[in-house]
């Protein structure tokens, strides 16, 4: 006899949202969490980093006060208080999830779960935090166990909490390092680089690919690197790290770029070279779960090869983003409950909270070309946008990509202040299957930075107004 209709393993933004939706659909639901409700996102990822980055941004603004005609004496950044604020924000979010679980009558089982063979779904054996073990059986089980920072032991890139940090250590520094090397220029790497640089740390980012933020459009990579360099961040691109060694005094990294070897040294180094799925810690092998390089192989609704077992979020593959996990969780649970959702395909946007910010959705110009979409591309820089000039936020631009044959909006790429808050305009447009005409005919409020989104759509068809 099943104890529950559904057990969700992992309470990150994939798992806890899936549990809420399941409860809304009338499923008797339990959620298993080995550490903190809300998972990495709320406790050690998205949210606490945003708190740090906001502090960094505020501090950075202080050095430009004169630009705005104001002055203050001796701005100071107190790292301890900045970190304490970040932890407080995380704590608040974590309690919020606990409240939501209670409100939706979802039983929270605190402990580490492993799967064992069972029917109609695998059994879930939980090693309880409070001690002891509890075995629970449900009709369906959703794996939402997430992922963790990827170490590369072959070159010595393994977090030790002292000289080599992963995101956890980087979130709670005890003191501000004087200098720092960041290995990897994806979102996590450049966000930490941005924060520590804002507080005055000497930061060098090392990227193996020939451009930074490699998933972004090439133009964004180029402009972002320039913007970061203006703030004093240094970069080594196309650089392969061959060895990371640490000493009492700090770390040194050997790298090779363009056939030349170089050694960089700093107080600490942050490893930001991707993630590994946590599937190795839940007994995937015991139930014969099929994996692909550590990630669960899933069908369109998160189905796995094991009857009754589903997987969503980071542990089921890229993109490794909280909102993708939540979306998959909802979709999966609706499928389990037999709820027929309408045919809507929403793209997954990516947001990076550096100074300036990066936001993008859909295809890059190059991807569109490679797919033979004969893209029509429009651009608009913020430096000629009235609101941006007034706010002193003239860095960056908006770039849009339309399908040349159908006029469908297929991609958007932005660099600039608060573009992470603007991108959803394009996400909605793509979801509603908008064409250039819809975006061109939409009335954008003035004065806003979002007017640049309108202009970019006009520019793609030679109709730009303010250039």
């Amino acid at each position, binding site marked *: *006899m*099943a104890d529950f*209709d559904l057990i969700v393993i992992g309470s990150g933004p994939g798992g806890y949202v899936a549990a809420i939706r399941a409860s*809304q*659909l*009338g*499923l*008797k639901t339990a959620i298993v969490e080995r550490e903190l409700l809300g998972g990495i996102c709320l406790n050690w990822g998205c949210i606490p980093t945003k708190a740090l980055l906001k502090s960094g941004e505020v501090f950075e603004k202080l050095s430009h006060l004169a630009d705005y005609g104001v002055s203050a004496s001796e701005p100071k950044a107190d790292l301890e208080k900045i970190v304490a604020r970040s932890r407080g924000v995380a704590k608040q979010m974590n309690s919020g999830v606990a409240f939501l679980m209670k409100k939706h009558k979802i039983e929270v089982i605190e402990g580490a779960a492993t799967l064992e063979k069972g*029917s*109609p779904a695998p059994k879930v054996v939980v090693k309880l935090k409070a001690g002891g073990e509890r075995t629970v059986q449900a009709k369906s089980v959703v794996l939402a166990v997430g992922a963790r920072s990827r170490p590369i032991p072959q070159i010595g890139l393994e977090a030790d909490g002292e000289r080599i940090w992963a995101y956890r250590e980087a979130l709670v520094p005890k003191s501000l390092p004087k200098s720092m090397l960041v290995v990897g220029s994806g979102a996590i790497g450049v966000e930490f680089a941005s924060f520590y640089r804002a507080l005055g740390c000497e930061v060098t980012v090392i990227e193996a690919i020939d451009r930074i933020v490699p998933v972004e459009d090439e133009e964004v990579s180029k402009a972002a690197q320039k913007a970061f360099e203006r703030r004093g961040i240094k970069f080594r691109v196309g650089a392969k790290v061959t060895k990371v060694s640490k000493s009492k005094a700090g770390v040194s990294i050997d790298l090779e770029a363009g056939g030349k070897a170089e050694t960089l040294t700093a107080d600490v180094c942050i490893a930001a070279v991707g993630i590994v799925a946590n599937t190795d810690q839940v007994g995937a092998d015991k139930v014969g779960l099929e994996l692909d390089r550590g990630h669960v192989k899933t069908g369109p609704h998160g189905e796995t090869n094991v009857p009754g077992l589903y997987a969503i979020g980071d542990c089921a593959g890229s993109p490794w983003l909280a909102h993708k996990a939540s979306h998959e969780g909802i979709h999966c649970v609706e499928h389990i*409950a*037999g*709820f*027929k959702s*309408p*045919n*809507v*395909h929403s793209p997954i946007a990516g947001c990076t909270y550096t100074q300036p910010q990066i936001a993008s959705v859909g295809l890059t110009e190059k991807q569109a070309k490679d797919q033979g979409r004969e893209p029509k591309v429009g651009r608009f820089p913020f430096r000629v946008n009235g609101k941006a000039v007034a706010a002193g936020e003239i860095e960056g631009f908006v770039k849009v990509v339309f399908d040349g*044959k*159908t*006029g*469908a909006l297929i991609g958007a790429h932005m660099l600039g202040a608060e573009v992470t808050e603007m991108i959803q305009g394009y996400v909605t447009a793509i979801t*509603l*299957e*908008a*064409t250039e*005409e*819809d975006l061109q005919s939409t009335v954008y409020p003035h004065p806003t930075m979002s007017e640049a989104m309108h202009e970019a759509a006009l520019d793609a068809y030679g109709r730009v107004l303010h250039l």
Partner: protein
Amino acid sequence: MTDILMPALSPTMEEGGLAKWHVKPGDKIEPGQVIAEIETDKATMEVEAVDDGEIAEILVPEGTQGVKVNTPIARLKGDAAAPAPKPAEAPKAEAPKAAEPAKAEAPKPASAPAAAKAEGGERIFASPLARRLAAQAGLDLKAIKGSGPHGRIVKSDVDGAAKGGVAAPAGAAQPAKAGAEPRQVLSLEQMGIAPGSYDLVPLDGMRRTIARRLTDSFRDVPHFPLTIDLEIDGLLAARAKLNALLEKSGVKVSVNDFVLKASAMALKLVPEANASYTPDGIAMHHHADVAMAVAIDGGLITPIIRACETKGLAQIAKESKDLAERARSRKLKPEEFQGGTFSVSNLGMFGIKSFASIINEPQGAIMSVGVGEQRPVVKNGVLAVATVMTVTLTCDHRVVDGAIGAKFLQAFKSLLEDPVTMLA
């Protein structure tokens, strides 16, 4: 608890009739078991169970017409996979809960057709991209079922329609304007036939399809007939020889099989006749997929001999017999009667001398075959007797002009009058 849904038996199927239930509440079923028969516009097909379990309830009674695809038609009890169910408290308590919100929130299927009303001021809900793709492909949004929120037509619906061949609007080039106004139909009473003086037989899927497709074709395709006489004494002699040879194998080649073979070969000799008109260009078909009209109870259906030009007479005879038999028992699969490039209709067995069939869109022509009978003929100025058969080719003038149709009939005639040439 699992719902059994109305299946889509072909990519374009939107609804069907529930012809017959083979199970009743309380019956145990297992995967693969035939549980019902569904009548589509063309055929009756069996529905096999996917899951095992026990039928809890029949939701759509036998004989119901117009059941939309994906409508629940029956419900299974609990899941049979679970070990010996104790008095199933849990499932009972939970299942209805799970179902309720779904009912409350799911877009009502009924709202879709309502939303997609059309020109008379009411709007069709479709995404901007869907509208543009439909316009580019020359598809009529009215004919497309929306799968988006509240029945909104989205890109994938148009993509599906383009692939699955939803009818282009009548005058394909200009979808919006060319769609002719539906004809005003007076009631029988208005036309002087007293109520009660007749029985009304409800329209089934096949009758509706015949009515719609042939009305569209006859009205919109510029068609003309070409008639020619064939002497088939040579054919009859060849057929007698061939059947004597094949007797042991139990295959019997009919005159119509010769007609199928000869028409397929003639289509290869005059490929312009093996073509379809589309707004984007003339589709020149690679193979002669010859459809043969088969009269069945309540209508007719046209199963297809694929790549007929590549097949021998014995093979054609076997296939045509099998297709005709299965057509009559309504056991054809959609792919067996959808997508021919040419049709042959034969009413010779009823003594019909000649007739002109209506084109089966999108085919470029259809051949109507009359009876083979002894008739007086004049040969070299002398009256003689020959077995003569009259065939009529109805051509779509947009693809098959008079001369092309005539060339085809010439080729067909020489093949059929001298069947040995079919061996070449």
